[in-house]
């Protein structure tokens, strides 16, 4: 999963871009096949829901094809796609806060929603245990993953984006700066703050918790 260092605009990108601008159907399909998994993984970590992630990845490609003529080639196609995807994910995440929807990965930010989210968390665990009958020794690891995912879900979208890009996608600072369109120094400082927020969330949400812990959103 961890990916590459900054990708310059390669010859392959040149060819792909030329074909995309001609509306080459095969080139579009090739682009989708090449990047959909990586984009989905990133977007899923950003939004926390597979359906939303799939929709956002789909929207990412649609926007990319629509605006292919505006792509100047200053970065790689992958970076450009990531920028679109991350921006869409951040916007989606911010909009979701106002929509106050409850999902299995939803936030438990309000007192009146606590019971709902508790049921959701229980159901989620039950489903995961049903579909993935983990051995006993992996159960703890699984719960730890759940704890981290839950903490990530509560992070501010901007914080979540830098953590996902750096720690999951293994992007370097320059690439993160290119994707988020912020200076490299800002990337570093935001990364520190994001990690600090995540640390705080994980600290308040002790291990072996049942998903009911913490209603903290770090800004």
């Amino acid at each position, binding site marked *: *999963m*961890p990916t590459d260092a900054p990708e310059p605009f390669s010859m392959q990108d040149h060819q792909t871009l030329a074909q995309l601008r001609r*509306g080459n159907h095969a080139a*579009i*399909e090739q682009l*989708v*096949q090449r990047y*959909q*998994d990586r984009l*989905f*993984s990133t977007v*899923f*970590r950003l939004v926390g829901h*597979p359906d939303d*992630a*799939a929709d956002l*990845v*789909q*929207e990412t*490609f*649609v926007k990319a*094809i*629509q605006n292919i003529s505006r792509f100047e080639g200053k970065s790689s196609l992958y970076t450009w796609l990531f920028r679109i995807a991350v921006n869409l994910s951040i916007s989606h995440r911010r909009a979701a806060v106002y929509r106050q929807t409850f999902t299995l990965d939803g936030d438990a930010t309000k007192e009146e929603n606590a019971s709902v989210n508790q049921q959701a968390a229980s159901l989620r665990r039950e489903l995961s245990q049903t579909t993935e009958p983990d051995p006993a020794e992996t159960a703890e690891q699984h719960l*730890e*993953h759940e704890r*981290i*995912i839950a903490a*990530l879900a509560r992070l501010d979208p901007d914080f979540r984006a830098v*953590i996902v890009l*750096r*720690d*999951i996608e*293994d992007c370097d*600072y320059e690439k993160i700066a290119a994707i988020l369109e912020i200076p490299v*120094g800002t990337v*570093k*400082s935001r*990364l*520190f*703050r994001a*990690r*600090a927020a*995540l*640390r705080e969330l*994980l*600290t308040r949400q002790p291990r072996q918790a049942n998903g009911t812990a913490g209603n903290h959103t770090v800004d």
Partner: protein
Amino acid sequence: MNQNREDLEARIAAFIDGELPPDEAARLEVYLANTDQTLADQVIGMISDKYAVRHLPKVSAPEDLSGRIMEAVERTSLLHEVENLTPPKKPWWQTRSALAAGLLLILSGFTYVVIQSTVRDENGFHNFVEGRNGAKEQIARDPGGGELLGEKDTRKGSIASGDLLDSESRDGLAAKPGGAEPKLKSEAGKHAGVASKGDNLMGGESHGAELAQLREEVALNEQVLRSQAVVQEPVEKALKNGFAPASTPQVALENVKAAPTKFVSGTPVLINLVARDDGDPQRLRSFLQEMIRRDDAAATRQVALGNQLTLNNALQQNAGSYGVQRSARRAQNPQEQGKQIAQNSGGALAANALDYNLYNGANKDFERQYASNTTASASINDNSGSGARGGDQKALEAQTGANASGGSGNKQGSLQNEGDFSRNNTTNTLNPYRIILRADQLAQVTTNFEVYSITRGPSAYVIDNFTTRNSTARRDRYEGNSGANADGKGKIIDAPAPGTSAKGEQARAEADKESEKIAREQLEGTRKKALDTATTAPVTVAPQALASAPATAPLNKVSPAAEDVAHAAKEQWVEVIILMDAPAVPAANTSMQERGK
């Protein structure tokens, strides 16, 4: 302070990611341990969290994600196209402005007309009307022109001849007020001479003979124009019987482009049109026949006009008719007959024939014979030269009798015998259909029919006067053929496969035997001339026919080239033959045609 804080955060982030240089990392560790233990603990927790996050399980995209994405992309692009196609709605004020401008324009025009009609000089206006009516009366009384001029109508401005003028010219003359000097259409370039003659006539002087000649020329010219109209009719009209125009086949265009000198306008070229497997051969054939019929009709008119070019296309239906038909030509000139038979001795008569006759001089008669031909074969019999085309039609009855029958002055230009048309092109399941086309006809086919290709054998080239493929070696190999046909007009040499026509075989053999002696004598006399002209005369060779020609062929003293035999055995290609120097259209007629445009 804030800047220092941000720098510290940036350095800590880089330290966690291992991006900090070792010495700087060491200094940061010392700093954290000595100054802020809480921050130091937090950094340790961050490092732990980093690896925890990194080792989150991988997530795979749903299997149908790519399909969904592609559907969305296509749907969006289609919607985008539709949006682009939809004209933007104009604001209301633009529509109203356009309406107001239109109304203003109409009012202005109406006002101008009213003012002009009010201030116009009445006398002048009446003269205008009178002159116009007079001119119209004159046209009505004398639509043919000629006789009335000078005697019954000495008034200047009358029309000399209605035949000389098209409707526009008449209108132009009639509209001249006050008996203005009539002028023929200036754009009718070819009519320049005619117009001047017309002017003389209009002066009141009678030139009976000149007038008759003039009228005859005009009549001929109109016929030319009509024939041109036939030729230039859109192909859609010719295709009304169910022929749908289609895209131009790339193969045909490339072939034409590759050999532009072979498709010079007016130069007849025999090519092979082979319908593709998915095409409808009958439609292609019908299309070609219809096109030939129309062009033939046009050519017929040209003959009637005294042109030196007559195209005579005939499709023969039966195998035997080929020999009969051809023998009629031979009968007119025993010597030429001998030459042609000598040429054909290496091959059999074709199953069917398409005659292409070029007549010179006063030859005005023509014949057209059409027949539906399901076996689709054709041949070329080219007769060029001057002299009356006598020919006893009864000589058609027998091949041998044709050899002895008389006739003179018919100079045989060249002869090409068709091969066995039962051969199929290996790349097509259809029988090849052979026909003669000119460049303009070829263009019609290539632009209006998609089931089309031009096939050319490995060495059966159309060798024209300008090609370099007519090498000395090749010429020598086929010198017998060249000699038999040398007349300076053109060479078409093809020795088709023997035994392909059962009916004509026996008669042909007898004819060969009787004419061999004559042919040999003629051959010796023409050999030198043939060698002289072969370097420039167009020669086409059919290797397959040569490959199958009998070794004892009396005049074809050549052996087929090894590569020709190999090719003939490998693939049953069909010959591409012919090039003739078609007599140019007389300049006078050409100019008339241009005038009609």
